[in-house]
């Protein structure tokens, strides 16, 4: 990437020259402060030119074009998913050795007796690679050779709200852009009719349904065009997408057409390029009104595909969202983030079995489906939550835990059939090949052909990055 300012100056100059050459008029102030707006402004009237990103050219060849982030919200227990800990089983009911816990931050177990709590389900080896995965997840097991398990994640925030914010933005201070916003700012999207960053949510049963704030997909100090757009499974798939009652698509089209004609008249009089941008936004909105409902209607999928995912049209389930994620991926959406809530198992961690029922099959189906369609190698799939859970019991459940937890990755540029890093023998602290949240972000950007230290935005007098002042690419998981 050229320095931001240089880029801005080039854009300014280019737009300025084209404007002067064609006699089109002024350059809006807002446009000059934000190249995104400028780029939109620089587009010829009514053109579909989309934002192509600040990174041009890429820092190195890209491995992937998009991310599908299967965000398991609430803090999935690594001990009942991907991290096999026989020693913890052996110590079930015994006191957790103080050498592990002394001086460490804990959440709801503050001041309580700390006892080991055995993994609640057996683990099995899957695939040729023989990866060890909890037996609740046989379908994920069936694609074991395609996935990379990271057992050595750690994070800094022990409560849901700030931990989500840290996982998504690399900071706990609100107002910072989320990773999807960074990516669409950096690279744009490959779609003209859809936002580049789409969020879907689903809920299940069995755990505490922790809230998810829209901060998690907010663009922070980046322009709001880079904000994630939440698609809803009930009502309008995008807010305000539907025509008002008594208004047909044709009626709406006539109004949009009149608005654009009038705006063009106005532009010819005052030469404000923001008006041209406004015209193309109305065109895109009108296309979204036509395109999105069909895209969101998975009933159009063959029965066999629905069956493969376990999706039922209109049920708003994680399975349906996985299928939607594939449809969005096909359309060129850059960052697709699915929040599946309700992994907060304080009371009874055996309820992970309900989660397994909800996510095992669709996760594997998505991987297989992407492979069959040739999208797997250009997509990064991330599966994981904001933190893990304690090896110590909280009744029959487990408390929040930040010193070690697991993630699963698959897709372009990722080694399949590999388990990377490890926690200690009780699954407490990541000890080998530790991976921080910043490292995860750096690796994700790396796969897109971006050097994470060079994707920056000037704010409050300094160049901010998704990875703050840290982050190392995790070479060990790269193919």
């Amino acid at each position, binding site marked *: 990437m050229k320095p931001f300012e240089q880029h801005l*100056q080039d854009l300014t100059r280019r737009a300025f020259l084209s404007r002067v050459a064609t006699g089109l008029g002024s350059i809006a102030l807002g446009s000059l402060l934000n190249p995104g707006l400028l780029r939109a402004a620089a587009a010829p009237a009514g053109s579909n030119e989309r934002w192509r990103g600040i990174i041009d050219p890429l820092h190195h060849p890209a491995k992937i074009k998009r991310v599908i982030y299967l965000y398991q919200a609430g803090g999935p227990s690594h001990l009942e998913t991907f991290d096999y800990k026989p020693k913890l089983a052996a110590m079930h009911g015994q006191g957790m050795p103080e050498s592990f816990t002394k001086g460490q931050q804990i959440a*709801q177990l503050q001041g309580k007796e700390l006892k080991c709590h055995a993994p609640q389900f057996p683990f099995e080896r899957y695939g040729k690679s023989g990866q060890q995965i909890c037996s609740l997840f046989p379908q994920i097991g069936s694609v074991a050779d395609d996935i990379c398990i990271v057992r050595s994640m750690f994070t800094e925030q*022990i409560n849901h709200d700030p931990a989500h914010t840290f996982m998504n933005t690399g900071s706990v201070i609100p107002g910072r852009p989320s990773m999807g916003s960074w990516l669409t700012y950096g690279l744009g999207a490959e779609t003209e009719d859809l936002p580049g960053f789409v969020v879907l949510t689903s809920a299940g049963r069995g755990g505490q*349904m922790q*809230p998810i704030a829209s901060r998690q997909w907010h663009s922070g100090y980046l322009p709001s065009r880079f904000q994630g757009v939440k698609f809803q499974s009930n009502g309008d798939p995008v807010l305000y997408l539907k025509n008002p009652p008594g208004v047909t698509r044709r009626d709406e089209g006539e109004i949009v057409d009149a608005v654009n004609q009038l705006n063009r*008249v106005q532009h010819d009089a005052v030469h404000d390029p923001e008006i041209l941008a406004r015209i193309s936004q109305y065109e895109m909105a009108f296309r979204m009104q036509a395109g999105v409902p069909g895209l969101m209607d998975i009933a159009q999928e063959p029965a066999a595909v629905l069956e493969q995912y376990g999706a039922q049209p209109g049920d708003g389930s994680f399975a349906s969202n996985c299928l939607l994620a594939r449809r969005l991926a096909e359309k060129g959406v850059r960052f697709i983030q699915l929040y599946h809530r309700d992994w907060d198992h304080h009371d009874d961690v055996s309820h992970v079995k309900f989660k397994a029922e909800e996510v095992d099959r669709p996760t594997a189906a998505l991987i297989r489906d992407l492979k069959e369609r040739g999208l797997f190698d250009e997509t990064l799939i991330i599966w994981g939550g904001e933190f893990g859970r304690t090896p110590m019991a909280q009744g029959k459940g487990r408390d929040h835990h930040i010193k070690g937890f697991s993630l699963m990755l698959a897709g372009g540029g990722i080694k399949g059939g590999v388990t990377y890093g490890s926690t200690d023998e009780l699954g407490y602290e990541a000890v080998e090949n530790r991976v921080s949240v910043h490292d995860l972000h750096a690796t994700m950007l790396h796969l897109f052909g971006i050097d994470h230290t060079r994707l920056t935005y000037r704010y409050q007098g300094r160049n901010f990055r998704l990875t703050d002042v840290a982050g190392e690419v995790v070479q060990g998981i790269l193919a």
Partner: protein
Amino acid sequence: MRWRAALACLLVALAGLGGGTATGGAAERLGFNREVRPILSENCFRCHGPDQNQRKAKLRLDQRDVALAVGAFEPGQPEASELVRRIFSDDPEEQMPPPEANHRLTGPQKEILKRWIAEGAEYEPHWAFVAPQRPSVPAVASAPANPIDAFILEALDHAGLAPSPEADRRTLIRRLSLDLTGLPPAADDVEAFARSRDPRAYEQLVRKYLASPHYGERLAIPWLDLVRYADTVGFHNDVPIRVWPYRDYVIDAFNRNLPFDQFTREQLAGDLLPGATSRQRVASGYNRLHRISAEGGIQDKEYLAKYAADRVRTTATTWLGATMACAECHDHKFDPFTNRDFYRFAAIFSDLKEKGAYNLSGGFTPENLSEETLFASPAQEEQMKAFDTGIAARRRELEAVTDDQLAASRSEWEKSTLALADAGQLAWTAQHPLAATSPEGTPLAIEEDDSVVPGGRNPESDTYIVTVPAPLERITAARVEVMQDARYPGDEVSRGGSAFFISEIEVLGSSGRGAPFRPLRVTVARASSRHEAGYPPAAVIDGNPATALSFVRKVGGGIALQLAEPFAGGPEARLTVKIHGAKQHRFQNLGRFRIALHALPEPDAYPESVPDAVLKALRVPAAERKPAEGKEVAEYYRTVAPALASMRERLAAAVKQRDSVALTIPTVPVSRSVEPRPIRVLARANWMDESGEIAEPGVPQFLRQLQPAAGGRASRLDLANWLVAPDNPLTARTFVNRLWKNFFGAGLTRTLEDLGSQGEWPSHPALLDWLAVEFREQGWDIKHMVELIVTSRTYRQSSQPVPALLEADPLNRLLARQVPLRLEAEIVRDNALAISGLLVDRVGGESAKPYQPAGFYSTLNFPKREYVPDDGEGLYRRGLYTHWQRTFLHPSLAAFDAPAREECTANRAVSNTPLQALVLLNDPTYVEAARAFAERVLREGGWTFRGKLTWAFRHALARPPTTAETGILQELFNRQRARYRAEEPAARELAAVGAAPVTSKAGAADLAAWTAVTRAVLNLHETITRN
């Protein structure tokens, strides 16, 4: 290359801009602040700057003496200077900045540094850290009346540019009205102004708008962004918190033109002012506006640290334009703020009474939030004091009766109570309903456990009428027991939303066998569950349908209704309980409940009436009781003794009277000063690290220090006085720079949040300083500054550029013209509502809930929430009153770049997105506004299409339509009218959007076709832009 350097080059190339700057030097000599510091700051200070932990080779380039001592350069001798050798070196080992840093010096930048050393390597203190002096107003040829114009013209002269002509009058009045009030001008005012020949007409308009109550609303918007004012707590469950009186304080302060120095004192330290008024204490709520959390598992110290840091960030940005946030973990990389400074600043606020983890201390209670009653007037405060005096007198009356005087009756009571206890009649007994009905026709199922479960459709407001047997001999009280049921949403106690509201409960009795039911007087209502502030149990027996009861913890509980006289029950006797929902809380009807009866006077609501401890003491023979046990019995007896009944009733009546008045007075979190907590310097912001030194309250060490009164600990008031002291270099500049942005779309320094080393070099440094000094010396008079700006010729210029101007100054940094500005989110809404005639322009009060898509809060929890829009006025209030849900800001506001207000925001982004198009096209607010606007057009716009359209344009855009515009809309109208004539039901569907009734007498198709036209008008770029 920094863009301002680019601009500088551009301008130098054009004409050699240099005059009018604070450094003031001739073009040939480099200015350290203007040309050199930006290069050093951007490329060198990270390793050779203020941060001592990052400093390499003991070299700091931000201080000349240190740089000289280390031998970084030889003034006047670039060839002998290490710095020059290093920056021009190709050797990766030597080169500066080193290759691994993401910084490269350009050729011209290297030359500038070299030239600077050749010229003597003189330093200047960073401009914004030196108190501004009033520069002389430049003498320019055209001798403008307004000093602002003199500064602007001088720079334009240097650049060889001329200002733009004044905007036409229609543009001007619309610009002024939107900028000063956030509302479009009245159409009549536009015509009058357009026709007026009065040379003072513009100044008269300025005065009119400055005096408008909507001026304060307009100015409040950016201030509320800064102080991150919102209606919810922000973290995790993001539940509501009532701070709107603070918002009204801000509006009022701008409207009465409270001087900014006093505005500052009242917000930071209103509670510490001598004889602080209610209003000043509300202002001190500023310190309590940050996000707060009650998430399970959080720790007090951790969150106290988060709140403290947030306060430093916000206060430093708002008043100092300083990025002190950067010093939370380490010394600032670019500015001389140390890590220690950050915590000293935080320590100034450590006297605030507050909680870290609200979940550990009972939640967001009035006590934890330091809520204070907000009196509307001194008279109201006096009235409340009189009530309190009366209550104290009633209490003394009660206390005058000694326990000894009651001994005889107490011993009788002890015997009968023990007998009742032995008979199992001391507790509430649930009664199985004989009948349960609702006037709304709601099916009320009666379950085996005696509970009543409302089902079927949930009406807006319901009444449950339940008749139960009354078998007890002597019935002293009835109880409605609220029960959770998983069939209901949220916390499962209400049929809609998360809370239930009960406006009244009536109790009627009949002795049976056809005897009529007569109303039984209820004297006291008690609840076992804590009630929402403003929704106390007394509301259900006050006969006022406008008041209601609601619980805070939505887990059920009892509401006990004590009868004035015991009711004689019996095998045939019956009681009927009527539970009325609250009409103003639509759909929030009570869920499952049951009715129980009691035989003892003054029973607690839940679960037992005679506390265990009392009963236990009672079972000990009187003579053998320990003193504590005796006291237990005697004290409890006083609450039930018949001899004291009338006194108790008088006390209860006095309390009830006070409460019923108190109900109408909101409470609000304020600052309360207590023993300060120790604040430690936290290395890397780690709150678990207790090894850091204790930070004494103070301001950044490189600025003048606080001088606490009486030599004691520095207080928030000391800080406020320091901020507005004449020698403070930052406060006035920060404020006027932001104010400038309101009227020109950008500050004189565009980095509104950073006047530090990395901030932008001002386009007109002398003007910025002149404005800052003027502001301070004119008594921090905000209206004076606004008036100065908007009466300037600079402000009144046309925003339409000419090509030559674009070529010379594409960024419009020299302000040779005005700029078109997209309206702010709230004002996009206000404008549409005002044009449509739907706007309710009442100033202040509780936040409003306009239409919002269903399910928007679906991922909120604890409790789950369903947004219930207001009805009536609440749907049509100005955007700044919209309920500000931090984690899910109203989507129409968010689409137009309103910030979530989780964090201090000095500068809103301005974007242009398809989601904005969808909002204006399809949000029912805008569809309804278009329909109401169409009705006005049809009613008032005359007879012809052209006449109507002209009327519409004059109201929406302050101008008539052009022929081309008329043609486009005539065609739209014709097509739409034909289409709706063919399908009138569709026309009626469109007209039915929104709660405002259709009043137009026009035909449905005409109204629909005009609605299509007005929708187009409300969607125009020009409508949401001020030119």
